[in-house]
């Protein structure tokens, strides 16, 4: 099992270098991190997985960008939009993670989308940044969305990932702290462990349904 923070944002968008984020991740109990616009490398035993975040694009653009990234080892994350967009993107081969569910429309992620995500092995990201740094309505909305996601996850068993979306080492949280934060919306320790392994699950090479012996 690989413990992965599904999204960190290094310098220049953030204020910490990739190496520093990796060092901090090691001290916080992670095996790997997905760093946006970074190169694949291993720093002090922590694997840095390059990631790309597609936001504000049409479904067609997302499909073409995902196609370009196929086979490069890059984790492709897409910002969630309305219901139709999510259904299309979750069906797109090469898209690994759907992010920003907390900010999407209330009915954007429903049982149909959950089924599509489960069938296509597309993960839904639990972004902890609105819970850590949000206050009041923003945090309440995020917890409510994640409660909905948890209900659908128990039914359809689509992959989950957990990310801190940290732009600084100060925004990163330890595995134990993430477990505590996830307990706010009913995710138990086993669920957190599975979700932290979610990136490895969605990026694993597809196995053929039929094995030739």
């Amino acid at each position, binding site marked *: 099992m690989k413990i992965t923070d599904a999204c960190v944002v290094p*310098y*220049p968008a953030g*204020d*910490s*270098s990739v*190496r*520093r984020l990796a*060092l*901090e991740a090691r001290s*916080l109990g992670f095996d790997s991190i997905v760093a946006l616009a970074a190169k694949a490398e291993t720093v*002090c035993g922590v694997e840095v997985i390059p990631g790309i975040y597609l936001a504000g694009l049409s479904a067609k653009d997302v499909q073409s960008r995902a196609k370009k990234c196929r086979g490069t080892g890059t984790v492709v994350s897409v910002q969630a939009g309305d219901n139709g967009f999510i259904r299309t993107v979750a069906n797109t081969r090469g898209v690994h993670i759907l992010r920003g569910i907390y900010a999407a429309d209330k009915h954007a992620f429903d049982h149909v989308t959950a089924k599509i995500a489960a069938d296509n092995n597309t993960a839904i990201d639990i972004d902890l940044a609105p*819970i*850590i*740094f949000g*206050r*009041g309505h923003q*945090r309440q909305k995020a917890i409510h969305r994640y409660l909905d996601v948890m209900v659908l996850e128990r039914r359809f068993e689509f992959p989950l990932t957990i990310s801190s979306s940290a732009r*600084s*080492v*100060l*925004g*990163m*949280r*330890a595995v*134990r*702290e993430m477990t*505590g*934060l996830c*307990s*706010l919306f009913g995710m138990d320790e086993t669920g957190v462990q599975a979700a932290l392994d979610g990136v490895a699950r969605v990026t694993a090479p597809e196995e053929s349904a039929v094995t030739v012996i």
Partner: protein
Amino acid sequence: MAVRPPTLREKRRYVLARIDPEGVQVDPKDLYYAMYEAVVSLFGDPVTAAMQPSVIGIESGCALFRCRRGTERELMVALSTLGVCREVPVALRILAVSGTAESLRERIAAFQEKATAEQTPPDQSGESVTPAGPEYRFGEAPVEILSRHGHKVDVIEKGFKNTRRLYLTTEDLEILHATTIPDGI
């Protein structure tokens, strides 16, 4: 009210947390207000009243918190949502929970010893990391080292505006004018 005998007193739990970034000065009173705001905004007044959170003190870059026994988990969750203390970005890394403050003070001493052992030994040439030492650069911008712990280096961009604290490693930095330093490369 008279002081109760020890067996009738409420049981407490003490939480030890390291304050990141290293070297940042935090006033215990400001930390108390930040912690209190974090607990109240996450769990509301009834839980906060039951928890009775407080800041015992700040010693050697570590903060000591106190709460009622059974509520330490909630306190730790609330502390992980604390990101700013009087407009200074900070992060609290929970190190230990104990039934006595004294044992946590022993932990602080052990933590300090470990941190000292992990520190990079000073260069043989006697160069220090103070501004009098070599000038460093990260990318295109010259930077000044604020603190250094092992491979971790906190720097601040030099300049009159848009200066911010950056969190780097020793491998990220380049020495400016390295070829002109007599004992340099």
